[in-house]
């Protein structure tokens, strides 16, 4: 079995990311925590959010018609509590939040989650994730 992905996206997400890329340029995600709009994946211009040794790269979204993969980052400390779950970045109607790029579109990225299967976890548990250091 190949290395299972930790993060996927829905067709609606791909459509919105394509639109946001055309408006803004290359993008990235950082998964937020905490209050108010916390727990939402925040979509920024690539490089806008400075990642470092305290962040891990949990995936790269390859989307048709978008030249470069969109990296998805999360705080390493938060990843410790999230790592046993598979994430899907979805889109719902809403108002965005923080400085995430989708809010003017009347949309909101949203994380949906499921537990990894035992088979997936057996591979992922022994596969290190890359940090931003």
């Amino acid at each position, binding site marked *: 079995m190949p290395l299972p992905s930790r993060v996927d996206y829905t067709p609606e997400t791909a459509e919105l990311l394509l639109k946001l890329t055309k408006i803004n340029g290359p993008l990235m995600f*950082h*998964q*937020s*925590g*905490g*209050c*108010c*709009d*916390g*727990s*939402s994946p*925040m979509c*920024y211009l690539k490089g*806008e*959010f*400075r990642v470092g040794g305290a962040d891990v790269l949990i995936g790269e979204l390859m989307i048709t018609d978008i030249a470069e993969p969109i990296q998805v980052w999360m*705080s390493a*400390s*938060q990843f410790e*509590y*999230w790592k046993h*779950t598979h994430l899907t970045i979805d889109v*719902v*109607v*809403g*108002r*965005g*939040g*923080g*400085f*995430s*790029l989708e*809010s*003017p579109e009347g949309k*909101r990225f*949203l*994380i*949906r*989650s*499921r*537990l990894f299967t035992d088979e997936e976890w057996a591979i992922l548990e022994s596969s290190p994730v890359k940090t931003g250091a």
Partner: protein
Amino acid sequence: MTDFVAPGQPGSKVTYLPRYDHWINGKYEKPDSGQYFENVTPVTGKVFCDVARGNAKDIDKALDAAHAAAPAWGKTSATARAIILNKIADRMEANVEAIAVAETWENGKPIREALYVDIPLAIDHFRYFAAAIRAQEGSAGELDEDTVAYHFHEPLGVVGQIIPWNFPILMAVWKLAPALAAGNCVVLKPAEQTPVSIMFLMDLIKDLLPDGVVNIVNGFGVEAGKPLASSPRIAKIAFTGETSTGRLIMQYASENIIPVTLELGGKSPNIFFGDVAAENDAFYDKALEGFTMFAVNQGEVCTCPSRGLIDTKMYDKFLGDVTARTNAIKQGHPLDLSTMIGAQASTDQLEKILSYLDIGKKEGAKVITGGERADLGGELSGGYYVMPTIFEGHNKMRIFQEEIFGPVVSVTKFDGFDNAMEIANDSLYGLGAGVWTRDMNTAYRAGRAIQAGRVWTNCYHAYPAGAAFGGYKASGIGRENHKMMLDHYQQTKNLLVSYSPNKLGFF
């Protein structure tokens, strides 16, 4: 018929304007873009007004006004500023019902909370800082016979403040009152989910403040909040929200070398020791209420007691009793005084909560009660309502580690003091905590051992001015709600004065 009439309806205490522009330099200013966005009430899910969609040019205009006003405002006496803050408080008190209705309609919270908690606390906050600035003194230190160090407090100048949507008025006032008391001018960006209740308040008090001292620019975070937070023209930025934005704001602040205060949320443990159930008395009843506080403001509170830690010695009895108490929560129209829990603030917040109910179930947590969206029927069917929910599980589950920001508490049991502290501190966050026990020695030891900025002891969700509020760990930097907040909005000027006529003798 509700106890209070919805804004815009005959007999209502509130009429919202159909459209809100920015508030800059003492007057309404149209947005540079000419664009507006729709403002929805979560009570029914319907649009009730349009709001200016601000951008960097609007922020600059607001900063121009603030900078023009800052020299004179910063030189007013503490007495003069305190008088203004007290007048604001008096004006709010005279209009408390209208402000409460305005906030409830925009945010969805039950009117009893807005009327008896949020707005009275906001009023008191202005009075507290009016008093604090009057009583604040600099110092004169006699370092030796001829040398004196004088310390003066000076305002920072122009500050930026970004406000969350869970308490649109109280959280704005928590930031405004100390900033204004200390002599600063403010550019404030409300949350795009709740942009106009603060405008309603501003409209009520606009004649009390000099032009340009408070400027409000609405809009989306990326279009209006970011230019404010990253502007080299602010001397400080204060933010309440989540961790990614908090880090971005620190990043921008590092580029401009300005201070930040951040309040970024929590996952607060509410700990019930076994002796709580020793008697079936008033205290036991109070503890049951203390557990049920997770439903306050629909759980949309940074300090929501969202982890219930129950002593194994009384686990079954206590969980049964708090479940009964939770099932007695009356969910209904937010404008009815008997309603205990209202609507979630926005559709995306509702979706997020539902996604957590989903992962909680998938991780194997047991739903003790609730666990679903609520349909209250009639005009409320379009609103954003969630049943108060108790999950039972363990502390490594995501519903125990992430701030759901909804009326959801995750319960687990502990065996002994050390185990309770271990679970309580196994969290990225450290904002609030609750400790319930009849033994004050246990209470004291627990309160000191928990890594959180606020430990409510035999109480919960009280926010009196004078009790410092802020976080440990990822919950943020700085404190609010206390006179020490003045320091967050002031420079320290030291005059080091020699009264000796004689040279040092070095050169």
